[in-house]
């Protein structure tokens, strides 16, 4: 270490003063901290200082440094963005940030249901409000993201049915499919059901052919990755007729207008909560939920934590705790169902704040407004020469495919030109979905005004 005269005292490290170091060393009768490392063989000791840049010791310089790097980014606040595809720009109500920035929640972790009562109640309430939205009695404490939730729901269905075969719609996010495949493959045989290129939904014919009595689960997203709202009832009924569990991924923000999947036969419902009051954060705002009815055998398949309400010694007082804790891997090591750990609890609390602010009317208004803006955008875009809306006859929530084949330009080129006008064009699908040619996924939410949509259309007319 450096010589005592010039030694830095670190604001985050109270005992970095010489006085403290000396006092503690003498208290434990140690000459130096080297005594504590005596068990580490010499040849495993690092013989040089870490090789890293000079630090910014003052808070001011540090802030300058990081902010300067961040300033190289251009945010969706500075530009007009039409990106969706699994992460969505919405208005984040101030109360959401106000709550999730509180030290009480932000810096807590895994206290008991007594000292951390607030966390338990806030997460119970989040689950309860999700339960109302989904019309299901069981909702878990958030997992990492919607991908994880979907993968887990498929494993749950296989454990529950004792079967290995899972049919997964290709209309889900390609990354989600990648994650599911790797996550499940040791115990599940995944078979992908292709996209119906006409509707942009799942190909019903392929589903019929693939279903048999060995099928544990049929998984699809509704709306799908391409924004299409499927006839979920038809798919679920077909799955159920083979005793397969219908499992549906859903955007909770759509549920002020769209039927909850439970109403059309889904037994496992999963999804992504980022849209519920959480900033996008370059994909860091994601969090996943899993929900089902209160079927005991299915409940026992949840790997994640379920918080339940429990009475206390004081009549009428609400306490909380883990329901059927024996399921989780914290408790049972390798006998637990999958694993459980730190995931995205703060986003669960935030989503709860969001739902309580929005209420029934707010959730209806926002979903309705998004449907209307999408319908308007579809009409406006379809009227631009060279632009096609391939699944125009479908109902779209938040996003839809826009095809540019007739413009003679690639999506990449078009997006570059739009960027010059401070517009983030729709996500380029041409690589992952070659069957759609030069297509992009355009997303419209409640933050897009008519002006914004018109601005996009004008810009597109200009650049193509």
């Amino acid at each position, binding site marked *: 270490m450096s010589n005592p005269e010039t030694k830095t005292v670190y604001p985050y490290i109270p005992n970095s003063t010489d006085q403290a170091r000396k006092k503690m060393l003498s208290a434990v009768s140690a000459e130096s901290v080297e005594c504590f490392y005596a068990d580490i063989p010499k040849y495993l000791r690092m013989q040089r200082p870490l090789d890293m840049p000079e630090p910014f010791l003052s808070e001011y310089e540090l802030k300058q440094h990081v902010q300067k790097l961040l300033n190289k980014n251009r945010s969706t606040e500075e530009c007009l963005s039409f990106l969706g595809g699994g992460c969505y720009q919405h208005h984040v109500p101030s109360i959401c940030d106000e709550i999730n920035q509180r030290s009480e929640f932000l810096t807590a972790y*895994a*206290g*008991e*249901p007594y000292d*951390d009562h607030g966390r*338990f109640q806030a997460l119970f309430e989040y689950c309860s409000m999700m339960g109302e939205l989904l019309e299901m009695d069981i909702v878990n404490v958030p997992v990492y993201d919607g991908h994880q939730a979907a993968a887990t729901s498929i494993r749950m269905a296989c454990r529950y049915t004792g079967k290995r075969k899972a049919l997964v719609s290709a209309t889900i996010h390609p990354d989600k499919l990648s994650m599911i495949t790797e996550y499940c493959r040791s115990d599940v045989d995944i078979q992908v059901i292709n996209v119906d290129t006409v509707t942009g939904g799942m190909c019903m014919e392929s589903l019929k052919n693939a279903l048999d009595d060995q099928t544990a689960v049929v998984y699809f997203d509704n709306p799908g990755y391409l924004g299409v709202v499927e006839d979920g009832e038809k798919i679920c009924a077909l799955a159920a007729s083979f005793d397969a569990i219908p499992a549906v991924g859903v955007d909770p923000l759509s549920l002020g207008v769209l039927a909850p999947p439970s109403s059309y036969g889904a037994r496992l419902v999963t999804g992504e909560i980022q849209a519920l009051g959480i900033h996008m954060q370059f994909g860091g705002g994601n969090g996943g939920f899993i929900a089902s009815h209160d079927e005991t055998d299915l409940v026992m398949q949840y790997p994640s934590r379920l918080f339940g309400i*429990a009475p206390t010694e004081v009549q009428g007082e609400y*306490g909380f*705790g*883990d329901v059927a*804790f*024996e399921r989780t891997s*914290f*408790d*049972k*090591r*390798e*006998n637990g169902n999958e694993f459980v750990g730190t995931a995205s609890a703060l986003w669960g609390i935030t989503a709860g704040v969001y739902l309580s602010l929005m209420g029934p009317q707010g959730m209806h208004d926002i979903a309705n407004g998004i449907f209307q803006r999408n319908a308007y955008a579809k009409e406006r875009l379809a009227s631009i020469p060279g632009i096609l809306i391939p699944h125009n006859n479908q109902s779209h929530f938040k996003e839809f495919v826009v095809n540019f084949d007739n413009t003679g330009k690639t999506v990449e080129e078009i997006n570059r030109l739009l960027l010059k006008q401070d517009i983030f064009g729709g996500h380029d699908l041409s690589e992952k979905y070659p069957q759609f040619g030069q297509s992009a996924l355009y997303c419209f939410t409640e933050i897009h005004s008519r002006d914004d949509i018109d601005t996009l259309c004008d810009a597109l007319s200009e650049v193509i």
Partner: protein
Amino acid sequence: MNESSDGPLIGLIVNPIAGLGGKVGLKGSDGEHTQQRALALGGKGCGVERATLTLRQFSRHSRAFSIVTCQGDMGEHAVAKAGLVAQAVLPIGAAEGFSASDTVAAARWMFAMGVKLILFAGGDGTARNIMDAVGSDVLVLGIPAGVKVQSAVFAINPVSAAEIVRRFVSNDITGCTAAEVMDLDEEELRQQRVSARLYGYLNIPDDRSLTQSAKSRSKQSDRGAVCAIADEVKRTMNDETLYIIGPGMTTSALKERLEISGSLIGVDIVKGGKLICRDASEQDILATMDKYPGPSQLMVTCIGGQGFLLGRGNPQISSEVLTRIGCGRITVLATTNKLTSLRGRPLLVDTGSPWLDKLFNGYIPVITGFRERLVYRVASSLA
């Protein structure tokens, strides 16, 4: 604790001569002859004293539970010494001549009265008597007072027994777990031979089902783990091998999984999914092996709090049987909880043959669950 208490009814049985033989080096107090010898040697039972220690943890004003007990040293005295009042005193255990049948009678009576828990102060013999009387129909908890407290039904000491009772009556403990009752033949023990077998199981309150704790709520029963072990073992079984399956709860779950009507505390022999011989003696095992000369495999669990794999609890599996099966052909089944309860002490073997014991020294993979093994140390108990 007085007549107007409205808590659950708890039965208290004290074996006044428990521990009698221990202090005078008699390795136990079973049998009238021994008891007389012990008394002659100046021995003194410690049942009353130990039970009093437990009861002293409760205030006389507590209304948490009511006590029903026996007369005199079989309970009444301990209750009084602790400053408590029994709700009822059964006419058992009059002044002198305590015998095992008193324990049996008291336990039956208490069961008929609907007690929620029988608390007893005694040793393995007392546990055995209570098991004979009530089996697994009522929860039981032992205050260790005997010379031999090999059975798993005892609290660590009288104070912790009180804590378990307290949590049981306040509904902090709601689960129960089956605990082994060991049958150690004292007569043989006195002859320098150990021949213990598993006598059966009593249900005890599951002490660790504690209050909620967020990250580490207490473990539940081992039931799930035992089933997972059975599944795992069944997967590895084939039709060619003769399986000799030892006694115990863990192996019993396997027997259930195989859908054979095996015995809980005996050795069963299975081949091709069928039960060939139930509750086999050493001779039965050897004879069956003669009859089926193909490969054989032994499946055992560790029995008793001491972690005995062989030599206690399963004397049928003798050194001759072991030699015939072959040392490498042993599958060990045990839950992780059972292994951790050994606190790092090795699994023990005492086959009666020192050179055979030596072969076991080392490490053995123990099947602890589905797709799960724990590598654990084995040592000769004589080492």
